[in-house]
């Protein structure tokens, strides 16, 4: 078990580190696709590392009585969950309107500014237009004769969201005021 967990952490750290470094050399336009491909490409290495990678003695502890398949299963599970965590953290940083807003204030002299100054560079018109372009690039929406409509992928997500909104009795950003 310990071997599987160790290998999962090492392989995840290796592929995520390599991918972040590569994004500095050749940034991908579709970062999620890049992350997904990175994860899938790392799977054979996970298997290889589990069976072949020499590890310190502590990482081999307890492997005598457990089935090797259990260690491998735990490696695959942890490797997958680390991938999810990486993607989630990525989008926290990349898409958050709140973090962008805080960053805009930080970049001003003395870390302070009037709201109108922020709005002049980061206003809702630009926010919405940019986000619609991102959604279009990712095939969630498209423009037909100047009007935005959902594509089937977007319709699926929006339908799930509608149900989720009902379950959790939550409000969208537009409904909060």
């Amino acid at each position, binding site marked *: *078990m310990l071997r599987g*967990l160790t290998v999962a952490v090492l392989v995840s750290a290796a592929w995520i580190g390599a991918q972040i470094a590569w994004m500095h050399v050749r*940034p991908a336009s579709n970062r999620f696709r890049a992350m997904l491909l990175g994860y899938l490409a790392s799977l054979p290495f996970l298997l290889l590392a589990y069976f072949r990678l020499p590890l310190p003695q502590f990482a081999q502890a*307890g492997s005598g*009585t*457990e*089935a090797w398949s259990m260690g491998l*299963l*735990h490696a695959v599970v942890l490797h997958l969950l*680390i991938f999810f*965590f990486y993607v*989630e953290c990525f*989008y*926290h*940083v*990349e*898409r958050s*309107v*709140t*973090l*962008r807003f*805080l*960053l805009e*204030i*930080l970049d001003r002299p*003395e870390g*302070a500014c*009037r*709201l*109108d100054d922020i709005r002049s560079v980061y206003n*809702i*018109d630009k*926010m*919405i*237009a940019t*986000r*619609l372009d*991102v*959604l279009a690039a990712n095939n*969630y*929406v498209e423009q037909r004769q*100047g*009007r*935005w*409509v*959902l594509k089937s992928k*977007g319709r699926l*997500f*929006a*339908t799930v*969201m509608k149900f*989720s*909104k009902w*379950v*959790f*009795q*939550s409000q969208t950003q*537009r409904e*909060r*005021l």
Partner: protein
Amino acid sequence: MKGLILSVAVFTCYVVSTAAACHILRPRRHALLFFPAALAWAPVYYISYVLTPADLGFLPRAWTASLPAVDLLYGLIVYFLNAHSYIDFFFAFNGGFSMSLMLELLQAGEKGLSTEEIISGYRLPDGGDKIYGWRLPRLEETGYITIDPQTNVCRLTAKGRVVAALTRILKRFLNLGRGG
């Protein structure tokens, strides 16, 4: 295997209990429910691990952990990673800006919406907007910024400065643009 099974079971209870609580209580701030609930269910996992037999009554010997401490810790890590994913799912689907836009388009149906129509839906009658309108008071309430009521100057608090600086470092590390 025991740690993984109990972790998934406790996580399922966490999801069902928080979803039910949200539906019944309709909290104004869901984060105040999700995070404490995740911490509250963690001891349940620990207690269930300690009180149950090593094979849970049905696991084959080869599936039984030879290092229970590692198995316990692994299950706890899996639980918190799943809880993080669940909370993220909620805020992305229910609170996310992209999802808000897509829900508008879902309601508009086949005729869709123009960019101007979408933007006007986020404007307030007094000229304000629904993006900053709730966000600024919330940021002030949670201690990230202060807003001078007379000059309308927004200023980062120490907490806000730390978060903003960390954001800047992470965006550079991930080679991202301004984003948002």
